[in-house]
């Protein structure tokens, strides 16, 4: 077990280095001179020089063979990538081109909004997906099963940006029940503790603030939860169906145990392993989906920020956020793998 965990932890390191490499290579994709592309055609010489210096664009990408030919071993390793990597090691993600604010600083400010949205969406997805999957599997080939399966297929096929727009159209433009976007209406203040507004407002006993925050978060959360909910439903159903065919389930039923006990005590425990993997994978697509959802609902998280940065060609921000999301995704899946090993003793024996 210990060895398995260690091996799994070590296996993340080369992948992480690969990820930084991919993100570093992004800026090679920019057509033309990256410094000019970043600043626009009318940039002054001075600014271009500043960007070149800041990104080390005057240095070679990986290794400097000219320095080596002159006998300079340290200069050989002084390259764009090694500088980039060194900055990353110091948690320095560069700074925004337009606002000249460190990316990491804004990230700290904006990340809680995305985290709150993702957590709520995942909770909604789990609350819908797991019961629906269990019900569908236990009432196989009934109308309920059919409706659930068709519903989950539609959910999987749903373009969430379209769903978000339709939600705004219905609930905000026509019915005027809910706000079209943002995180809080102007005038409402919530004392920040964790920066998760729903939690903070509850902790400070600010009920009006809680309702206001809830009204703002509910539409984007539902849009973002659609695809994970559908996928979790399908996975829970098929995993439960697999388990329900096992001999020990037949034995349990033959013993005269009630359906409830068989389903929840015997079947669910074993059916849950593949579902956990899927939940881990969905965490990544939630963060990716946040780019679309936050854009539609003007949610002040990292997704909306990425969208604005793409439009503004603020490349360091796109690089920084993509890196952060990839790292989170990697670690969520690491945790899933490790929890798998704890839940299923057979894994670590392999």
């Amino acid at each position, binding site marked *: 077990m210990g060895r398995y965990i260690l091996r799994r932890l070590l296996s993340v390191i080369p992948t992480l280095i*690969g990820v930084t490499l991919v993100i570093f290579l992004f800026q090679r994709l*920019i057509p033309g001179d990256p410094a000019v592309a970043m600043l626009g055609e009318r940039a002054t010489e001075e600014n271009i020089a500043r960007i070149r210096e800041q990104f080390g664009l005057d240095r070679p990408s990986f290794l400097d063979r000219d320095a080596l030919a002159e006998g300079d071993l340290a200069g050989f390793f002084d390259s764009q990538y090694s500088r980039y990597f060194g900055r990353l090691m110091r948690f320095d993600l560069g700074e925004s081109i337009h606002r000249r604010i460190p990316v990491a600083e804004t990230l700290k400010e904006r990340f809680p909004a995305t985290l709150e949205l993702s957590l709520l969406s995942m909770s909604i997805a789990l609350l819908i997906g797991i019961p629906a999957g269990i019900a569908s599997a236990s009432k196989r080939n009934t109308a309920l099963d059919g409706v659930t399966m068709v519903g989950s297929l*539609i959910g999987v*096929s749903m*373009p969430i940006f379209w769903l978000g*727009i339709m939600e705004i*159209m219905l609930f905000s433009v026509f019915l005027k029940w809910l706000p079209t976007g943002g995180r809080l209406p102007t005038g409402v203040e919530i004392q920040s503790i964790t920066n998760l507004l729903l939690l903070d407002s509850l902790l400070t006993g600010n009920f009006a603030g809680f309702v206001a925050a809830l009204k703002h978060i509910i539409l984007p959360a539902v849009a973002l939860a659609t695809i994970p909910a559908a996928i979790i439903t399908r996975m829970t159903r098929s995993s439960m169906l697999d388990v329900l065919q096992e001999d020990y389930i037949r034995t349990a039923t033959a013993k005269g145990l009630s359906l409830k006990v068989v389903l929840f005590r015997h079947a669910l425990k074993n059916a849950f392993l593949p579902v956990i993997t899927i939940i881990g994978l969905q965490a990544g697509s939630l963060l990716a989906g946040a780019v679309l959802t936050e854009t539609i609902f003007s949610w002040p998280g990292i997704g909306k920020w990425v969208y604005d940065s793409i439009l503004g060609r603020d490349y360091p921000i796109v690089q920084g956020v*993509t890196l952060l999301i990839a790292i989170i995704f990697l670690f969520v899946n690491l945790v899933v793998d490790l929890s798998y090993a704890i839940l299923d003793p057979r894994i670590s024996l392999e």
Partner: protein
Amino acid sequence: MEETKFEINGLEDFAVREHRSLWIDAWRRLVANRTAMVGLIVVVLFLLSATFAHFFWDYEPKIDLDYGAKLLPPQLIATEEVDIHLFGTDKLGRDIFRRTIHGGWNSLRVGLVAVSISLLVGGILGLLAGFFESIHMNFWESFILMTLLGFALGMLPAWIARQFFQAILFALLGAGSVVFDRYLNGKKKHRLYIFPALGAMLAALPGLMVGPMVALVCGVVGLLIGLLLSKPVGGELFSNIVMRIMDIILSFPSYLLAIAIVAFLGPGLEKGMIAIGVVGIPVYARLARSAVMSVTQKEYVLASHAVGESHSRMLFRHVLPNILSPIIVQATMGLANAILSAAALGFLGLGAIPPEPEWGAMLGDSYKYLSSGAWWAVLFPGLAIMLSVLGFNLLGDGLRDALDPKIRL
């Protein structure tokens, strides 16, 4: 020959059913599956309408403008003032029905090309990785692999010292390692010293011509390469390298990587196709590899190996046909995902360049005048995306049931 024929004749009473191929069988199961047929019909309708519209119904997006007919709701009957607008018009007075039909050509094309890219590259990589992971490479395959490996690794010292011929020297070293392994089998112990020493020499001596520091660095690199080349690596290493690269691509959540790539490349349909295609490669590589590895354990592959069939014959006659069904299913579902990702790119303004019609871009456009209450400008392009994606998903589900009755629940 005569004997077997006789036997089959004898069995005729027994085998009442005529011979049917797997594919015909699967087709019959597919036709019998109602939801799959709905999916198939939806898919065919979308493909036909998009193709026919592109070739037989002219549309010039650049001159399509009519401010007089701005934001009209759906109009089913023509009156004196307004034409028929089945889906209404957008803020530039363009007919949304027409743009939705024509947009299909762009949206579906992105999906098809992207999936072809991921299928081709990922499929071939996975096929080779899985095959050589479970079946030993023969002399010539090993020879080619090691020569290429030596050449690729040799590029590093060659680049550092600006001496291209070093790469060729290392390619020869790689080839030598295979020959050594085959013909000088008795002296296995020595090669752990011989090859690193040779490698260091091959790199350091030419490096000396450039400078002492270059010789030092090249020597160290050459030593390491020599160590790597000292024993011919099997298919396992190849498979490992391929799968590690796939892991790196997979560690970016779904279309985020595609969005990032296109954000840097700049918008455009073709760039979107490539980005979505590249991002999809690992899925097919993993699937193909695991399918190949399970097939190569089967008796018929072992038998063909035992009777001495060539590797290429084994690969194309026995392995490839038997891994097709999971790949076909995945490709169908992958099409659904690719269309979704393409629409997402279009929505973010990274897909088709306006005024070219594309479903995602149309949505991104109409989203900007949402408060005007023009629901039709939002509803129909989105519905087109959802229905086409749903069609491919339904078809994929049905294909899985039809092609692999064993896993049918």
